[in-house]
């Protein structure tokens, strides 16, 4: 696809009109992302579509290599050098981010519009710079008039993320912080420019469980106070249950099911989503082996025929091996990409474990999905 310079300049102009809560904020459609690895082409994301609404938390779940992280990175132009968006559009405030290529354009987005929190707080901060300087760094670029104003913003952010004695913390170095505190500092730096969208790439995976809960609570509070949309990438369904308003399930570079949190947890339709839910260790029975999805995800170096999950799906239909299923709408907010929803498909019962989930986690224990 040709991407001219004039086109880019036009694409970089952002529509500044306010988006009402629940309104469409970002719409990724038919995204294809490819990487060149030692001369071979890898399709990390294959025609994935996703929408993010103002003020909501969308959790993107899937196993390692499902493309969830890569998809989110493409919203900030943060793909590694050997990767690029090959097709599709990412509409955000009237601009198509998929067409951005110049750094100048991305600088209008990164940090100030869409910010990102990384997985490992132990490595996400520069060890040689004070925590405060790293928060102020973002502020001075986009928001603050001078260094003093940037410092004030950084102090305010430190306080916002729950640090006592912000002035002292400001002057400290990352190695003087614990993991949980570093993640708070990372979040402070990410929100310093007042972004509209906060991408959280497994922000609690590297933390221990008690700290995990604190950080999740912090993100929730910040989202409420600042009115941000949160794109939450995780493979931990427990975290999803706690955080998400909506859930998108990814498999082999595609979104295979998307819906409100309660629709995904209590009324999942895609066999892969069933398998994911059945893998929740909380659903295991004493004396019974825990459920695990058999096999491995398909190689993304090769063209995938039919439904990518079919080879691992004991309930796969013949058609799954031949044709890729389209999306079937389950409800206005819920859709799944599986032939099981085709009127011609045989009626299949969801697995026993998924039914157990409903018994174990009654409505209301899923904290998201209130919207």
């Amino acid at each position, binding site marked *: 696809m040709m991407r001219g310079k004039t086109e880019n300049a036009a694409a970089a102009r952002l529509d500044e009109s306010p988006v009402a809560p629940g309104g469409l904020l970002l719409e990724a459609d038919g995204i294809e992302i490819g990487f060149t690895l030692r001369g071979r082409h890898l399709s990390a994301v294959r025609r994935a579509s996703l929408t993010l609404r103002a003020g909501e938390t969308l959790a993107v779940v899937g196993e390692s290599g499902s493309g969830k992280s890569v998809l989110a990175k493409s919203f900030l132009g*943060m793909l590694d050098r050997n990767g690029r968006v090959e097709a599709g559009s990412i509409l955000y405030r009237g601009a198509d981010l998929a067409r951005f290529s110049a750094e100048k354009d991305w600088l209008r987005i990164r*940090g100030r519009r869409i910010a990102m929190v*990384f997985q490992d707080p132990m*490595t996400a901060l520069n*060890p040689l*710079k004070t925590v405060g300087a790293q928060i102020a*760094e973002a502020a001075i*670029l986009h928001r603050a008039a001078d260094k003093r104003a940037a410092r004030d913003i950084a102090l305010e952010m430190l306080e916002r993320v729950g640090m006592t004695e912000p002035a002292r913390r400001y002057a400290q170095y990352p190695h003087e912080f614990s993991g949980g505190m570093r993640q708070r500092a990372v979040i402070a*730096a990410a929100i310093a*420019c007042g972004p509209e969208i906060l991408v959280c790439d497994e922000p609690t995976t590297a933390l221990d469980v008690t700290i995990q809960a604190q950080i999740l609570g912090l993100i929730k509070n910040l989202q409420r106070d600042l009115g941000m949309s949160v794109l939450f990438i995780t493979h931990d369904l427990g975290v999803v249950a706690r955080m998400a308003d909506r859930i998108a399930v990814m498999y082999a570079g595609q979104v295979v099911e998307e819906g409100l949190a309660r629709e995904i947890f209590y009324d999942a339709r895609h066999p892969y989503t069933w398998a994911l839910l059945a893998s929740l260790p909380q659903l295991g029975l004493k004396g019974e082996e825990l459920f695990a999805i058999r096999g491995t995800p398909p190689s993304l170096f090769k063209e995938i025929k039919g439904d990518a999950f079919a080879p691992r799906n004991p309930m796969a239909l013949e058609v799954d091996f031949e044709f890729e299923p389209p999306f079937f709408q389950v409800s206005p907010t819920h859709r799944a990409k599986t032939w099981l929803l085709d009127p011609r498909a045989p009626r299949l019962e969801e697995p026993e474990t998924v039914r157990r989930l409903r018994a174990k986690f009654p409505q209301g224990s899923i904290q998201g999905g209130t919207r």
Partner: protein
Amino acid sequence: MLRYMLKRFAQSILTVALVVLAVFMLLRLMPTSGYFSREDYVTMDEAARTAYLRTLGVLDDPFTQFGRFASALAGGDLGRSITVYPRTPITEILAEKIPYSLWFGVAGISVSMALGLLLGVMMARYKDGPTDWLGTAYVVVVRAVPSLIYLFLIQTAASRLLGLPMIFYADDVSSWILPAASMALPGLAWYAIWLRRFMVDEENKDYIKFAVAKGVPRGKVMTGHVLRNAIVPLVQYFPTQVLLTITGSLIIESIYSIPGMGGLLVYAIRQHDNTLVQALVLIYSALVVAGVFLGDVLMALVDPRIKLSSAPVEREAA
């Protein structure tokens, strides 16, 4: 910090003292004929030689000799050269020679540091591009080709092309250019390749990606984060490199006839000039020890994680 530095300083003195003691004692095991210049040795008979050795004091117990050496040293006296510059005080020899090596060394290191670091930054910034390719080619050539070959080439070809003198004349500034440039070549390659390497290492770290995600422009990321952090592993070597410039360069000083320190130690050893050898060993080892010490201090200044005291870093919980 101060306590640590005092402790390290004491350790450094001890290290130098031990090195000098060891070399001093080893030199006493050498045949005594080394204390004579060639003519003296031939003209003197056995009794005269013994008498001469007695006046030198080298027939005494080695520890007594070392005591004498140490007390003279306390008075700033390094003794007199025996065979290389017969009977000349070593301090005088050094006072004359060190400035040449020092100035060429400092000129060389300034050029190599400035251009080498710049080249390293450019190679890392435009990695896999033509700059990187040319820079790597330069580094490979300088490091793989024996230095004599390109040094002679510079002396002959470059002097003709640029119309510069082939030999050093103290009063002709233009004759200083080629030797200074020659001094800079290997250092330039060293700085470029190591800075490039450390910068490329840093560039792949998470905090660089996070800085980019915050919206920091690439140029600022390169200088404020990548370069800033990549320089840390290099600063440790800066003091040693600067201090050791006074040892001079054996090859460059000899091909341009610069009366510097280059080769003096080798020459003194070959001529059995024990007093000169022990004086040079003292100076060089003191420089190396001081360089390492200053390098550690510099490291602590640029890396906040390094604390020069034994107090553990306190880390607070979330």
